C-alpha cells in the first residue's frame, strides 16, 4: 500500500470539496487534492494518488514509469480495483457502493 498510483487530473471541482476527477488507465474517480494546497492544479496535470488523496504532482514520464512499475510488480489489477473503489461521490443512501466503473 505504499506504492502510489499515478493519474491525470481531468477536472478540478470548485465546489469547496477539495475534490478533482482523475483518470487512471481509463477509470475516472474523484480524489481529494487538499495535500496539494498552495500548488496550482489544473486539468492535464499528473499526480500520485494514495488512498483517495493526490500526494504530489509529478511529470508525465514519471507517471508512466510508476505505472510500468506497478504492472511489473503484478499490482496493476489491485491498483485499478483500488481506484474503482474510491466512492466518495458514489455512495447511495444505504451506504452501499454502486457497482460498475
Amino acid at each position, binding site marked *: 500500500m505504499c506504492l502510489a498510483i499515478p493519474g491525470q487530473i481531468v477536472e478540478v471541482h470548485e465546489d469547496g470539496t477539495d475534490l478533482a476527477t482523475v483518470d487512471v488507465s481509463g477509470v475516472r474517480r474523484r480524489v481529494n487534492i487538499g*495535500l496539494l494546497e498552495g500548488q496550482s492544479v489544473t486539468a492535464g496535470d499528473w499526480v500520485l494518488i*494514495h488512498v483517495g488523496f493526490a*500526494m504530489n504532482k509529478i511529470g508525465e514520464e514519471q507517471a508512466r514509469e510508476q505505472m510500468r512499475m506497478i504492472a511489473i510488480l503484478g*499490482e496493476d489489477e489491485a491498483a485499478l480495483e483500488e*481506484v474503482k473503489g474510491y466512492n466518495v461521490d458514489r*455512495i447511495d443512501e444505504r*451506504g452501499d457502493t454502486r457497482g460498475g466503473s
Partner: protein
Amino acid sequence: MKFVDEFRDPALITKAADEIARLADPGRTYRFMEVCGGHTHAIYRFGLKDLLPPNIELVHGPGCPVCVLPMGRIDDGLAIAETEAEGQRVIFTAFGDMMRVPGTRGSPLEHKARGRDVRIVYSPLDALKIAQANPDRHVVFFAIGFETTAPSTALTLKRAKALGVRNFSVFCNHVTIVPAIRAILDSPDMRIDAFVGPGHVSAVIGCRPYEWIAKRAGKPIVVSGFEPLDILQSIVMLLRQLRERRVEVENQYARVVPWDGNVPALKAMADVFKLRPFFEWRGLGFISQSALALQDAYADWDAERRFAVRGVQVTDPKAAQCGEVLKGVLRPSQCKLFARECTPEHPIGALMVSAEGACAAYHTYVHRRTLAAAASASASRENPSWITQQASNA
C-alpha cells in the same frame, strides 16, 4: 495510458551492477536495510540480489504497516466491530490489506462472515461518506499506515469535524518510521551498515528527519525510488559514501521527494495528531514516541475514547518468528513456519498477508521458483510444527 510490462534500460541496470561490483570492497561484508516494504517487494520481484556481489546483503526493514501492527491492536479493533452504538451495530471499515490479517479470534474478514458489519474501503473519505449516508449508525475507520497514509486520515478528520459528522470515529494506528529505525539501530542483535530510505513516506516527511541517522548514528541513508535502477543506484550511492568515509542523507528519488517534504500534509498531521508516549510494534516491542493518537480537539472522533478499548497485549504464536524477520535478524525462509503452516493462502503472521510483507514477497518470487525446480517431499504432518513446538516448550 495503459499499464505496460517491460523492463526499462537494461543497459543502465548492467552498468549500475558493474559499478556496485567495482565499489564493493571484497575484504568486508555490507548489510544494507531497505526500510520500505515496497522496496522489499521490488527487490524480490526483480531478483536484485542476483545482481549484487555475495558480500552485500539486503536486510528487510519494518516498513510494512500491516506487518508491524501487533495482534492486540487487531483484537482491539475487532472488539469495537462487535460493539453496538445507539442500539445499532457498528459499521467497521478498513483497507483491504487489513482484511486477512489474523487476530486472536480470526481476521476482519472472518468477523464479517460471522455477521459483523465489516466493510472494505479504499479511502478514509469513503468511510466518512458511509457515516454521512447512515446517520443512525456509527462508522469506525481502522486507520493504519506510516506518514504516507496519516495525512489522508488527518484531512478526513478535519472534514468530519467541519461538517459536524458525529457518527464517525477513527481507531488510530498510524506509526512513524524514524523511531522504528532508531529502535533497530539500538537493538543489540542488529548490525546494519547503511539504509535505503523509503520513497513515498519521504515524499511526505522529506529528508530532514533522517539527518540524525547520519549525524548521531553514523549510518549513511539514501532515499530511493522503486524502480530496479533506482534501488541499484541507491546502493551505488551508499557504497560511495562508505568508500569515501562520508555519512550523509542523500536523495536518489528527488523527482518525487522534496527535501522538505509535503508541507500541507505535515501541517494537517500536526493539526490533528499528537505523538503517543509509546506504542507496541510487532517484533520490535514498545517504541517511545513512535505512533500517533488524536489530539483532544478530535476526542469526539477518537474511537479509543468513544469505545472501551482494552488495550490487549497478545503474544504471537511462539513458533512464528515475525519479529526476527521484521528486524532483519532472520530471512523469511529461516522461520519455522515459513511455507509450512504459514502461506499467503493461510497466513499465520502478518508478514505473509501483505504483498509488501517480506514473507509474502519471498514466498511469491523465491520460494515458488525454488519449489518448481526441486521436487519437494512434502510429508503430511499430523500436527502443525508450531503446535508441537509449543507443546515441547510447555
